[in-house]
């Protein structure tokens, strides 16, 4: 009887799956996509130019991909967990060997039809991989040396490959994604505390190994006014843009800071600055609410999932998205040093969006197949 029920609930028809969709999440994602398109249109100076077109194409393709992914059983995503991880590590190695160098770092790999930034994908696939690793693990094994060491290797391997690109920012984000999984998997709190203590103690040594430009970023963050036209330029101009937005903003397409090209990297890392300048405090708060709803839905989907893999993935993915958003916003608001992390969905950049959409796809699949148990 029990078996029977399980079997029947496992086999979902197309329309049943459709009904199982999390429409709130979907609407929020589409809304975000629309907002990002409008902002991209503004960065192009109020015309449909390269960035707008390209962003639209990616958004359309990847949203469609996410929808397709939702219909595929969560079991399948579980099964390819390690494979995907290995594939992305392979891509990272490939990047290290034949990558494309631009502005001093080798982050891109040419896959003939698309230029890909594998480190962005790793942010998601490390979650998939670790979630699979901890799936159905006995509680007493979770804190065993073997488990911890293995998971550390899983995290450190891609980190190392990204650091050599060099791209410390993304490496840290990958680590955060991985650590989020460890956290939700139930690894003892004391390990985290030890790690944090160890990090603080080793900080001076880490600083000694930092590249000059990385040191400069940290110093600039601490005192941006020291060199307002050099290293501090981005932070200062970004703060000016956000601050001059006021409560209701300067209005759509009327952001002087970005329109007059005072803002650097306005398509990518600083997209929130532009949005905030044009739509003000109210607009930014609304954007934050949308993000909050998305994260809340991801966590709720995790809570309602029956499989441990889905639960861990959703919790960790939600936490990771949260951290990405926080870091990006703190950076443009002058609360953190410039680390070069995009704002999910909003920022221009295919790899980042692909990774985020894959994440949403798996979450959506978990939602659709929330009664699915994974052996």
């Amino acid at each position, binding site marked *: 009887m029990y078996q029977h029920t399980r079997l029947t609930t496992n086999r979902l028809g197309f329309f049943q799956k459709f009904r199982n969709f999390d429409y709130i999440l979907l609407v929020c994602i589409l809304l975000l996509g629309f907002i990002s398109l409008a902002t991209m249109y503004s960065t192009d100076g109020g015309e449909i130019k390269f960035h707008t077109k390209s962003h639209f194409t990616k958004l359309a393709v990847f949203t469609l991909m996410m929808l397709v992914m939702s219909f595929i059983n969560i079991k399948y995503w579980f099964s390819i967990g390690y494979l995907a991880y290995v594939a992305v590590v392979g891509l990272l190695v490939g990047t290290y060997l034949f990558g494309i160098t631009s502005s001093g770092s080798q982050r891109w790999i040419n896959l003939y039809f698309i230029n890909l930034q594998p480190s962005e994908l790793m942010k998601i696939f490390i979650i998939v991989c670790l979630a699979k690793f901890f799936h159905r693990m006995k509680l007493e094994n979770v804190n065993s040396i073997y488990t911890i060491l293995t998971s550390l290797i899983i995290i450190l391997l891609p980190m190392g490959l990204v650091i050599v690109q060099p791209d410390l920012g993304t490496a840290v984000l990958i680590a955060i994604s991985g650590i989020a999984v460890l956290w939700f998997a139930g690894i003892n709190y004391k390990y985290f505390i030890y790690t944090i203590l160890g990090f603080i103690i080793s900080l001076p040594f880490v600083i000694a190994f930092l590249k000059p430009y990385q040191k400069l970023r940290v110093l600039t963050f601490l005192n941006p006014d020291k060199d307002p036209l050099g290293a501090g330029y981005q932070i200062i101009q970004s703060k000016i843009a*956000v601050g001059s937005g006021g409560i209701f903003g300067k209005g759509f397409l009327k952001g002087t800071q970005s329109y007059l090209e005072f803002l650097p990297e306005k398509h990518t890392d600083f997209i929130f600055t532009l949005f905030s300048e044009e739509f003000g405090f109210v607009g930014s708060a609304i954007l934050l609410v949308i993000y909050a709803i998305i994260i809340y839905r991801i966590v709720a989907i995790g809570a309602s999932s029956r499989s441990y893999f889905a639960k861990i993935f959703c919790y960790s993915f939600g936490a990771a998205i949260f951290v990405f958003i926080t870091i990006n916003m703190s950076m443009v608001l002058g609360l953190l040093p410039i680390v070069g992390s995009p704002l999910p969905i909003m920022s221009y950049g295919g790899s980042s969006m692909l990774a985020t959409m894959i994440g949403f796809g798996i979450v959506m699949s978990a939602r659709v197949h929330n009664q699915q148990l994974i052996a």
Partner: protein
Amino acid sequence: MFITGSLKFFIMIGIVSRLFFLQVKENKKYLTLSDKNRIREWKLAPVRGEFHDYFGNVIAGNFEAYQLHLIPEQVEDFRYVIYRLKDLLELSDNEFKKVLKKKNEIKPWETLIVSDNLSWQKFSKINNHLYDLNGVKPVISISRNYPFKENFTHLIGYVSQANQDDIESTQAIKKNFVPGLKVGKVGLEKTFEEKLIGTNDIERYEVNAYGRRISQLEFQKGEKGKTLRLTIDTEVQKLANELLKDKAGSICVMDIYTGAVIAMHSSPSFDPNLFVFGIGQDDWQLIRNDPMKPLVNKTLQGNYSPGSTIKPIVALSALENGIVNTSFTVRCTGKTEMYGQIYHCWKKKGHGYVSLRNAMKQSCDTYFYEVARKLGVDKLSETAKKFGLGEKVFGDLFDIEKKGLIPNTQWKKNALGKGWLLGETIITGIGQGYIQTTPIQLCLMTAQIANGGYKIYPHIVVDDKVKDQPIDKFTPLYKNSKNIKIVQDAIFGSTNEVMGTSYRSRIDNPKYQFAGKTGTAQVKKITEEERELDLKTFQIPYEQRDHALYVAFGPYKNPRYALSVIVEHGGNGSTTAAPMATKLFRLIIDRHKIRESLRNKKYLEI
């Protein structure tokens, strides 16, 4: 779950509060920063105030200069256009190189001034070829013009490109500075810089991060500089220039009651228009190396021995101090021996017995040796200083003005550390030795004798209201007004009576009749052999010839004007300088009526 949830919540709150802090609380600060970022001001050169003469003639004005600008960025094929321009404008290789150099110094969207003062022919030629010269802009810009050329050069000065020193020393220049701004370099142009400069037109543009203009937001019209009206009469000034043509020297004319300067000219002069757009190397060398020193304003900077023109002051001082009276006589034999030294009179045969009036009339040196000896240099210098010698006439008006030198015993002790020699007193009595005066001082001295011995303050600018009239204006400079009359009468004799040194230059018509004193200042000591030779002026090398001086006032019956003439190395005062006074007085007195009719009117109504 609870931990992560609440952590997320608090971090979210943190970001929102940061947004609130930046966008709501600090909004004003960032809004101004953002405006500062995007709004850039462009200042245009202000329109300079003009100089008018007493009758409203423009003596330093503005004209529309035809210029050629181009913005390198807007030119498709810069090489083609610039070579095409070189042909059309017939630029020399040197000028062409300068333009190319300038181009490399500016940003591609900044204006390159290819030519700043084109002739109308070339300007219209360019306009005809514009179809072919993309990005080239013919521009009409306001620039300085001196229509009377060399006539007013030393008085008004000239303008030229502002340099670093100008910007640092003058606040108004700093405030209104734009590249290419022309500012006064010497003369009144420099003195009244702050009044003349005006204020910039300001264009406010929205710019992008690279400083490129996006759109014009505002245009704020600047104010033209103040126009200054001078006391100068252009006609008299022109005559002065004409009289001194090809000579080195100075002429100044002054109203003896108001102190208004009617004319003030230093020769040789040069065309100030040459400096407005930067003087060429050739022209500059020509002016700089001229042995007659056109760059020196001789009226104010020239320290000359006054020669016999000092005699009225010597006589006055002696009368005032009761050393001599009108009946005091001296026998002149052509030379006299004092303190073991022989002093010569200019007249070898001597004048015989001379009284004060005759001595002044014939400019007898022996008489004045004796008077000076009795008077003493200290009393003489006191009177001389009272009448404006040894002191800057215009105060701070001209920074180049020299004080001259009125020596006394104290001065020699302080400056040279030596005691005064009696022989030095004697030559001071005929305006030689240490004594030095500028032409404007001599003019002022004469004016103050002519007006009956009252203090006046010379000025050049009419509208420049002397804020507090000096309290000692028109205070008597004499102890006894009779003494002034005696001196005036003696000077009258010198010009209008037979045997007078400037008798040949007299005008008998009482309307123009004037009184004047000649002067001949030696530039070197005359040796005994030279004295024996008794050379004519033209036989002596130019640099060794005497300076010719003349001071005069007129009309004699009711004097209004005083003048001083100095011709460097002109030989004799009575043959070179005095005839100029004749011509000047005819004109000055003719012009007097027109001037009077204008006294209380701003401009002549025609």
